């Protein structure tokens, strides 16, 4: 919902804290996901994720969530699907060039990021969207990413970049 989405972005710091608690929990549940089978839990978890994030952020389920790097504003709601910053058409009042009655997703993202502890992550260049992930759970992808990088770190004690990549995903 549009008004809820604006509210969450304006409380980006709160949601950053919540997510920082939430991520280690779902990661610790890795043995559970593994025993149940990631493929089997994919659908129900994705449905739950779509419900929660749909209400809070108008989540579009791109499957590779970047909310924590975009000020808790879902940039898939930008009519141009921009993942790396606002376009040049933002109106003087901070509204969208295409939907003049709506706030620019990126103006909100920038404001949200300024509240967040790790807000400067908004300055990282994001890769193009992988459209084959559409509709899948970003949470489970994060867990698998974190676990994989931990296992890699065990085999090879040097710092692994994958860990960093996983941290950027939500």
């Amino acid at each position: 919902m549009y008004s809820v989405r604006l509210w969450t972005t304006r409380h980006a710091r709160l949601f950053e804290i919540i997510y920082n608690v939430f991520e280690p929990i779902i990661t610790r549940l890795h043995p559970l996901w593994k025993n149940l089978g990631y493929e089997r839990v994919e659908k129900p978890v994705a449905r739950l994720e779509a419900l929660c994030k749909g209400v809070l952020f108008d989540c579009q389920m791109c499957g590779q969530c970047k909310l924590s790097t975009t000020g808790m504003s879902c940039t898939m709601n930008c009519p141009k699907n921009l993942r790396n910053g606002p376009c040049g058409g933002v109106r003087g009042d901070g509204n969208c060039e295409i939907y003049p009655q709506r706030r620019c997703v990126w103006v909100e993202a920038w404001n949200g990021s300024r509240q967040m502890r790790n807000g400067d992550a908004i300055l990282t260049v994001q890769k193009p969207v992988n459209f084959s992930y559409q509709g899948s759970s970003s949470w489970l992808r994060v867990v698998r990413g974190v676990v994989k990088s931990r296992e890699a770190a065990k085999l090879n004690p040097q710092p692994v970049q994958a860990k960093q990549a996983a941290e950027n995903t939500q």
Partner: protein
Amino acid sequence: MIFEDEPLDPWHPLPILPGHSSPGRLERVLRAGRFTVTAELAPPDSADPEEVYARARVFDGYVDGMNATDGSGANCHMSSVGMCALLTRVGYSPVMQISCRDKNRIAIQGDVLGAAAMGVSNVLCLSGDGVQSGDHPDAKPVFDLDSMSLLETVRGMRDECQFLSGRTITAPPRVLLGAAENPFAPPYDFRALRVAKKVAAGAQFIQTQYCYDIPRFKTFMAQLRDLGVLEHCYILAGVGPLASARAAEWIRTHVPGIDIPDAVIKRLAGAAKQKQEGKQLCIELIQELREIEGVSGVHVMAYRQEETVAEIIDRSGVLQGREPWFPGRGHELQKESA
């Protein structure tokens, strides 16, 4: 401007100098530190090549590069690839604009290779206007990539010889990478940082939106300097003549992202000959912009007033007697100078 190592035929690429990315004239001029002029070339709604050449000819001797727009304003015209193919055939140095609105990553990468093979040396990576603002509002917006990931993609093709998929490219596209920025749209604090982000993604030159608000532009340039961006990137400030106060008012209210201060509109409204005043204002803006630290040149967007560009550049004096290359100004002159 004629280089010592001009090819025998103007449509052949120049040798790529050490440290250069492209065989193009635009990069040569930028790297030589000359005040550079580019202009926007509006594509015709026609399949007649002569219409492209006629539109290009009005800039002869005054611009170092011309931007072939890619469905600007989301309106349908001749494609930028098609225009560039025609322009490079006679030796012009077009800046091929690529918009992410109409093509996915497969089409875009193919176009980059095709364009580079046709002699295109400069690519401007844009997100593009929304389909809703053009003549086909019922079209499907693609936006598979955005301007930033497009920059990274083309840089990867050029420097890593790889498609986005990782597949190898045998001869990479040697292009100078450009991007756009609008310092006059919110969120203002983000704009300079976004340029830094674009430079990190591969941008080597930036063409800005129309600059009518000089104080804001100066702040933006100071931020770029403080971020250390100016050492890695050439900034071409966007300028253009306003035809009348009414036109300016219309642009301000109908074209998102273009900010025209009240003072500018007032000045135009108070003039007896508004079109003349618009040109004079543009000349003064160019002269002011030239003095700002880090401005490497101007990008003139004179939509439907292209014929005024030569006069504006001439009267502004920014070329300081330098005459950019154009077809027909080639080897005889080169031999003379040799």
